[in-house]
């Protein structure tokens, strides 16, 4: 098969794989798991034609290890998985963050914990995406809500990843992953693709972990004359282990600041519905589509509802949520879990705006009635 032309009916997972290829990904390592496996399958079929490589690793630990390795060898790389596999990737996700390795991890969420309702949708790995690996660390996660966004956001994930030298989580779920929608892949030439910054100094002067003014160090590739020493142990600008007092603080702070000082490049939200409303919905991913539908339903019931949709979930859009809370009478957080993002909303809720949860945990796309019920509750 070749690259789909024109308007196509396409599965979200396929759109993701094509987004990756169009973003320049040339290496995929993974271990199959429903509902993400179609991403692997497209890569296995298509990557060779692009000079890329697909490898099926022995497990997810190996998969994320391999994409980190390949990225350091200069290839844009990614993997896709679902909850159980994402859990197994946590240790090495930390390695990728610490060594500042651009790569993309797609998590097509399903109901957990454990095997749970395997293959049925959920959005219950949100907090895990932020905190699943041990130790202090930042992360970037973005959440698509349609097939089109599975394509677009995959590209965005690669771009953010290359820009900030950090693994980026594409936090989808079974609904966006396995829904088919019409999509037209754009002319690849029209895409804005970010490439990692390469060193400009001569090889002998290169310090692989010496940051530029934007706190991100230029990145050589294995095989370059610029020697790249990448270590999971506390290291200084040389990349070599360093245990001096202060090195750890400096490194952890830089890793944090290179992200948190540039939130305007990362944070993305979407506002939907009337500017002023009785109830503001906060949601993300496939649940946020249901919210858009519910805005209309509520209107019919005479309740004015709007939606703040979180496109970037990590770092959390603190300010945007805070402002929305300040403006509204009540808030309903709609998510397909027992309450995760709602905790973040409450964290930034300095106006003591009442916040209600609409929780979809039935292994299906959250039903509009669940959200409507919370809205009614909120306006009572």
């Amino acid at each position: 098969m070749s690259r789909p032309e024109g308007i196509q009916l396409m599965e979200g997972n396929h759109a993701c794989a094509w987004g990756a290829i169009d973003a320049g990904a040339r290496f995929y390592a993974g271990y199959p798991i429903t509902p993400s496996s179609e991403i692997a399958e497209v890569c296995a079929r298509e990557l060779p034609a692009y000079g890329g490589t697909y490898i099926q690793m022995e497990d997810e630990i190996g998969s994320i290890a391999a994409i980190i390795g390949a990225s350091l060898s200069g290839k844009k790389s990614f993997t896709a998985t679902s909850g159980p596999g994402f859990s197994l990737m946590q240790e090495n996700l930390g390695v990728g963050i610490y060594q500042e390795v651009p790569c993309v991890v797609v998590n097509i969420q399903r109901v957990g914990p454990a095997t749970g309702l395997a293959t049925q949708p959920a959005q219950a790995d949100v907090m895990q995406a932020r905190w699943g690996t041990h130790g202090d660390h930042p992360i970037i996660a973005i959440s698509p809500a349609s097939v089109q966004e599975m394509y677009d956001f995959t590209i965005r994930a690669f771009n953010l990843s290359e820009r900030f030298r950090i693994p980026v989580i594409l936090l989808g779920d079974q609904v966006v992953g396995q829904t088919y929608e019409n999509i037209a892949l754009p002319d690849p030439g029209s895409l804005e693709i970010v490439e990692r910054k390469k060193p400009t100094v001569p090889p002998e002067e290169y310090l692989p972990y010496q940051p530029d003014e934007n706190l991100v160090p230029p990145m050589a590739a294995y095989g370059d004359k610029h020697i790249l020493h990448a270590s999971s142990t506390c290291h200084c600008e040389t990349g070599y282990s360093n245990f001096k007092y202060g090195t750890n603080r400096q490194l952890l702070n830089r890793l944090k600041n290179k992200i948190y000082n540039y939130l305007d490049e990362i944070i993305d939200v979407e506002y939907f519905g009337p500017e002023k409303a009785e109830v503001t919905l906060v949601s993300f991913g496939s649940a946020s589509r249901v919210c858009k539908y519910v805005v209309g339903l509520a209107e019919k019931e005479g309740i004015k509802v709007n939606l703040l949709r979180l496109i970037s979930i990590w770092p959390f859009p603190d300010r945007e949520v805070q402002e929305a809370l300040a403006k509204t009478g009540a808030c309903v957080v709609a998510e397909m879990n027992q309450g995760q993002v709602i905790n973040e909303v409450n964290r930034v809720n300095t106006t003591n705006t009442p916040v209600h949860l609409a929780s979809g945990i039935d292994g299906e796309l959250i039903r509009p009635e669940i959200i409507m019920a919370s809205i009614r509750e909120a306006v009572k």
Partner: protein
Amino acid sequence: MAVKLNYREYFKEEALPLMWCAGCGNGILLRAITDALADLEIPPHQVVVSTGIGCWGKADDYMTTHAFHGSHGRALAFATGIKLGNPDLHVIALMGDGDALAIGGNHFIHAARRNIDITAIISNNFTYGMTGGQYSPTTPLSYKTTTSPVGVAEPAFDVCGLAEECGANYVARSTVYHVTQLKRFIAAAIQKKGFNVVEAINTCPTHFGRRNIPGDTVEMMKYIKDIGMPRSRFEKLDEEEKNKYLLTGELVNRERPDFLSVYREINPAASESGRGEGK
């Protein structure tokens, strides 16, 4: 005489002194590797070492080549990506016995099965050195460690046997006592395509030695000198006796095609520039 490369090209002299204990053979193994690289005249920037976590896993701190120091047990999984990301590289995985065979056992058997072009150099000191001397899957049955105070109840892996069974192309065992042989095997493994394993029997006077071998660092070294045995002598032993020794020498040297060669044969477009970028 033409200017030949010297081990110092690969060795980060300014990082001396080494962090390892007195009498730890890691330094000897490091020297053998850097010597082998010099002999092969592979420029440092064409080499990536992927180290595990452990005493031996600190080896990258002393090397000038490209390096990756990742997580415990995963050196080969990272190395797999490194190699496939840039097939021109010489990728060398440096692992302790715990790295390679305890937590990392799965990557080991799969890398061997795939016959992916990586050289695995395993420092087998029969214990987890870094964490204080617990038993490892290569600790000989009934030997004492901090977690087997009266003796370990599990038989040890035959590292080389396992590598062979799974499909490694080249498998050799030596000791840090037999330095010239060790260097020869390492050079051969680096030169050969495919998954190649060199098991270096190593000293750990601090933990393994202290609990099992009366005497000092020298006695520890004598112990590993004595348990390594070439096939000529090994095969004369009876089965019982064989358990006390480790066969040394080039144990496997075959010509299975490596992973990428097969992959490219099966997926021919992979070897060309393909449909090209963004097409």
